[in-house]
């Protein structure tokens, strides 16, 4: 396997050829699953918008399952594998230890993902993302998830190995950078999360073969140790990327390493228990268990997010002020490079994650308030704001830097790329707020027909619901347009883009 180093002209990192190649492979896989999940998203949206109602029930539930798995597991985890190779070997100017194992894990993950996709597309796994036992899928579905998780866990192990190798070979001095530290917390959470995944999918796999019994309530408990904790991997990776984009776009400073790093540690310690908020209206746990896990534990993780929500904008503000942008209270924000898609994505990601996703999440995760939120549209409204408006948008912003720095291509359709974060963020903002609001009327999630046209009893939601669902659909369509712009730009840049050479571009005198 060829192993050479190049020095990045922008960041001065020494980049290992295998790190380059593994980042590219994982990012391309992520984009393919983003396309699959995106098509499913559009079809699901156009079915829930009762005016169009495009799919029949079987394909609606199938597409919803495909949308959930492709986006929440395959797209996000493949991208996070790329982030781990970047935040480890690249940022530390180190080599990738055992690149063959990296490629092997990649193949295992692809095989696992394809098994799951096959089971879903052939109607063998119409079980939703959560696949609550005793709702049964074909065994290949569970086996595919297990393979995918094993592959991902191996990459996490490689990331830890890279930290050890970099330290031993002295490729950096002092402590690891904050971006790497954040990725490390994501990696540690990933170990815990994938451990839960093994603990639940392996018994469920045997159950699907008729070899053992799985208790429905235990399944829900352990599954959410995977299902929600997986979102905390996104959270760790996203916050690490926030710090990175802040530094790259405007030279944001880290106000205080102690505070920012302690906040990351709070995630590791407490976020796992917060998964208990999925069981707030379940017939098993008592109030003490619910309150302990979702308050004592969860609120310390919430505290961590509120700390990052301050330190990142404050780091940008201080970075700008120290460079002489000192006009007024918000001059640092007005004079920021809003035409840089990396910067606009960063700001929109923080705003949507915090204001929409964060506030609704903490509120719905309150023991008693969950009574008026559980399984209504308020829930997907919340997590689309965190995972899509927050994480996916941050990933998009990072991509605009990944293309020149790692793929060494110029970003194609640059004018489109510049407005893409605005279109996507605006669409998601409208979509998530409308969806959350529709849930306030009790409109259920995961439901093919809220007009109940073929049911034994009639049910009519308030006319306001039609309006709100219409707004949701329009927001979703705008966001889908933003998503298509992103895919067009990235695919075109990577496969047909002009090579990126810093010296030539500077010589040409273009931006």
């Amino acid at each position, binding site marked *: 396997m060829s192993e050479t180093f190049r020095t990045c002209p922008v960041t001065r990192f020494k980049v290992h050829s295998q790190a380059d190649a593994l980042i590219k492979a994982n990012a391309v896989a992520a984009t393919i699953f983003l396309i699959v999940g995106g098509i499913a998203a559009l079809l699901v949206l156009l079915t829930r918008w009762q005016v169009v109602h495009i799919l029949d029930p079987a394909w609606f539930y199938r597409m919803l399952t495909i949308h959930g798995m492709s986006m929440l597991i395959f797209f996000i985890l493949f991208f996070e594998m790329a982030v781990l190779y970047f935040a480890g070997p690249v940022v530390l100017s180190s080599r990738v230890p055992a690149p063959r194992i990296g490629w092997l894990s990649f193949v295992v993950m692809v095989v696992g993902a394809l098994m799951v996709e096959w089971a879903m597309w052939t109607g063998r796994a119409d079980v939703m993302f959560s696949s609550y036992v005793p709702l049964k899928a074909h065994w290949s579905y569970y086996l595919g998830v297990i393979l995918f998780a094993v592959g991902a866990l191996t990459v996490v192990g490689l990331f830890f190995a890279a930290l050890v190798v970099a330290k031993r070979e002295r490729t950096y001095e002092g402590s690891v950078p904050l971006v790497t530290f954040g990725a490390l917390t994501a990696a540690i959470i990933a170990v815990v999360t994938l451990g839960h995944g093994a603990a639940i999918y392996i018994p469920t796999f045997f159950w699907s073969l008729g070899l053992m019994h799985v208790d429905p309530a235990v399944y829900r408990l352990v599954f959410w140790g995977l299902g929600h904790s997986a979102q905390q991997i996104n959270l760790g990776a996203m916050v690490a990327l926030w710090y990175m984009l802040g530094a790259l776009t405007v*030279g944001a400073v880290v106000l205080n390493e102690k505070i920012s790093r302690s906040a990351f540690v709070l995630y590791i310690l407490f976020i796992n228990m917060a998964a208990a908020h999925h069981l707030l209206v379940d017939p098993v746990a008592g109030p003490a268990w619910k309150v302990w896990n979702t308050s004592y534990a969860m609120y310390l993780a919430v505290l961590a997010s509120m700390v990052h929500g301050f330190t990142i904008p404050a780091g940008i503000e201080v970075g700008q002020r120290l460079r002489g942008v000192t006009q007024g209270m918000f001059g640092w924000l007005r004079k920021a490079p809003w035409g840089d898609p990396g910067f606009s994505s960063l700001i929109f990601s923080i705003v949507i994650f915090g204001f929409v996703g964060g506030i609704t999440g903490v509120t719905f995760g309150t023991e008693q308030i969950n009574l008026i939120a559980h399984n209504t549209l308020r829930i997907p409204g919340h997590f689309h704001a965190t995972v899509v408006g927050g994480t996916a948008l941050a990933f998009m912003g990072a991509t605009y830097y990944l293309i020149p720095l790692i793929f060494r291509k110029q970003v194609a359709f640059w004018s489109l790329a510049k407005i893409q974060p605005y279109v996507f963020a605006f669409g998601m903002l409208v979509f998530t707020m409308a969806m959350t609001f529709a849930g306030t009327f009790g409109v259920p999630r995961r439901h093919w027909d809220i007009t109940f046209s073929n049911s034994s009893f009639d049910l009519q939601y308030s006319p306001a619901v039609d309006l709100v669902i219409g707004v949701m659909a329009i927001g979703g369509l705008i966001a889908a347009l933003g998503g298509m712009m992103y895919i067009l730009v990235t695919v075109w840049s990577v496969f047909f883009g002009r090579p990126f050479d810093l010296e030539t571009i500077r010589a040409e005198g273009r931006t």
Partner: protein
Amino acid sequence: MALQMHGVPRGITHPPAPLPPGADHEHPKTTGTLVLVFVFLAAFAVYYFVNWKLLSLVWRIG
């Protein structure tokens, strides 16, 4: 203004200037951010307590 077909983010072509030496790291001014986070906290508190109010309107259950 012609549509630009190719480009590279500003952070790469015009990387942020290095911090001026002797910049005051110890007492940074963050008034703008403080205002923003207080707006956030206010929004949070309003949404949170509105939901307790909504909850108090439903049936007695327990």
